[in-house]
């Protein structure tokens, strides 16, 4: 049989126009579901973004013994730079440490007066790729010759942070999955209704000798167009709301660390549109199937 795409697309567009109310219902339902899904994605992305920012502050400070030789320091520094968990290593010399102390106490110079440059030890400030690596790196540092009491890192904070992060991320994933299931049900229901209203039409098509595919394709293309329109509208709204939210949050609660970098505009848009189209196509495919058995 000649596979007539032009005919199928024309039929689909005609179907959309002639069943306008049903089409609008399906498009609206898709849009609402994609909005909810998009909101879920956004909240999840921002929460993870904030958590990441908090985690970025986590450092391990490793102090050298006062009598450490420059060679010893250099060697330790290179070793630490080689750790895969380490993002960045900064060396703080005794002089630098004292300078920082003086800056901190600039208001009360008498406190730091008379201190020599050998009052403070030199140290390495180690920034980690992920706060959860802290304990492992600490063990490695001990292996590299540092004493346990010379290592300083906020273990409590890190542990707590990891625990909460885990919960939040999983809760968000579960909520998003739940919304997704709900949207699929809602949309396929809307599509089923619109096809149920046209079951007589399908029956007649089959009686004049149309094959299943011939009947089905226009409906599937209709579903695709409905999904595409609904999802695109919803995705644009989601991204617009996101932009407003980021702007508001940066002004109102700058310390929270909300950043537009937490959300990849393009991938959120694509995910939402692809999900919408997939639901539309799958929904109409399944719904037509039920009425094809004539």
């Amino acid at each position, binding site marked *: 049989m000649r596979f007539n795409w032009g005919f199928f697309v024309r039929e689909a567009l005609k179907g959309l126009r002639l069943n306008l109310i049903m089409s609008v219902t399906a498009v609206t339902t898709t849009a609402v579901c994609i909005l909810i899904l998009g909101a879920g994605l956004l909240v999840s992305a921002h929460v993870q973004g904030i958590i990441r920012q908090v985690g970025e502050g986590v450092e391990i400070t490793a102090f050298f013994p006062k009598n450490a030789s420059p060679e010893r320091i250099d060697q330790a520094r290179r070793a630490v730079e080689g750790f895969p968990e380490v993002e960045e290593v900064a060396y703080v010399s005794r002089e630098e440490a004292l300078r920082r102390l003086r800056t901190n106490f600039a208001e009360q110079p008498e406190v730091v007066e008379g201190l020599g440059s050998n009052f403070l030890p030199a140290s390495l400030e180690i920034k980690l790729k992920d706060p959860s690596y802290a304990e492992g790196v600490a063990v490695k540092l001990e292996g590299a010759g540092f004493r346990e009491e010379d290592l300083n890192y906020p273990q409590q904070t890190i542990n707590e942070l990891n625990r909460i992060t885990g919960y939040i991320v999983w809760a968000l994933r579960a909520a998003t999955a739940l919304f997704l299931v709900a949207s699929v049900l809602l949309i396929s229901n809307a599509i089923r209704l619109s096809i149920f209203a046209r079951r007589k039409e399908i*029956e*007649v098509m089959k009686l*004049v*000798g149309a094959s*299943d595919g*011939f009947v089905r394709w226009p409906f599937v293309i209709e579903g695709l167009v409905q999904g595409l329109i609904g999802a695109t509208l919803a995705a644009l709204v989601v991204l617009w709301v996101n932009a407003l939210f980021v702007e508001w949050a940066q002004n109102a609660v700058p310390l929270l660390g909300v950043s537009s970098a937490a959300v990849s505009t393009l991938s959120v848009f694509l995910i939402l549109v692809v999900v919408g189209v997939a639901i539309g196509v799958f929904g109409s495919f399944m719904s037509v199937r039920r009425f094809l058995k004539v």
Partner: protein
Amino acid sequence: MIHFSNVSKVYGKNIVALDHVDLGIESGEFVFLVGASGSGKSTMVRLILKELEPSAGGITVNGVRLSAIPRRGIPRHRRSIGCVFQDFKLLPNKTAAENVAYAMEVTGQRPRTIRTKVPQILDLVGLRDQMEKFPDQLSGGEQQRVSIARAFVSQPPILIADEPTGNLDPDTSVGIMQLLHRINRIGTTVLVATHDREMVDVMRKRVVALENGRIVRDKARGVYADEV
């Protein structure tokens, strides 16, 4: 052309619609299938279209045993049989011309063929001027003509009409019967299931009478009921 051998159809457990029916219809015949409602006429039509499967016995249409046709072969089978129904079964969203064209689209014919053929066939059924009207803008008789045009446009070897005049007034019915008669004269096998007594008596064609799922009479040039 159409052969029933010992066909029975039972709905559910014990509702017998057809009871050991044997019937042969040859190519080019015009046959009336008559009987009261519930006598099994529609069941026979639906069996021929393979809308239903017989409970027992075998049916051959166009030299093909229906039981040998797989599910995906059904559309091709139906395209070899033009169908006319009591309720017309037109697609409400399509104009008269589009309804006829659809039957050609499903067989994958070229747009150019469709464009030339559709007006010709609508001319033949006398609806040239009503081509662009939708079914609900046409009278019952006109709708039935569209449905006959649709059934006949691909020139199938067999045309089946199930109560084609059931919803029409007597004058309109005559027109429909004349149309079916013309289609028969160009070689199409025509089977008309009806309880339109007047029509059957006027036409004087072969009459097969059903009663409670059995063939009680089969007579060439017959009438609806035997003279008492």
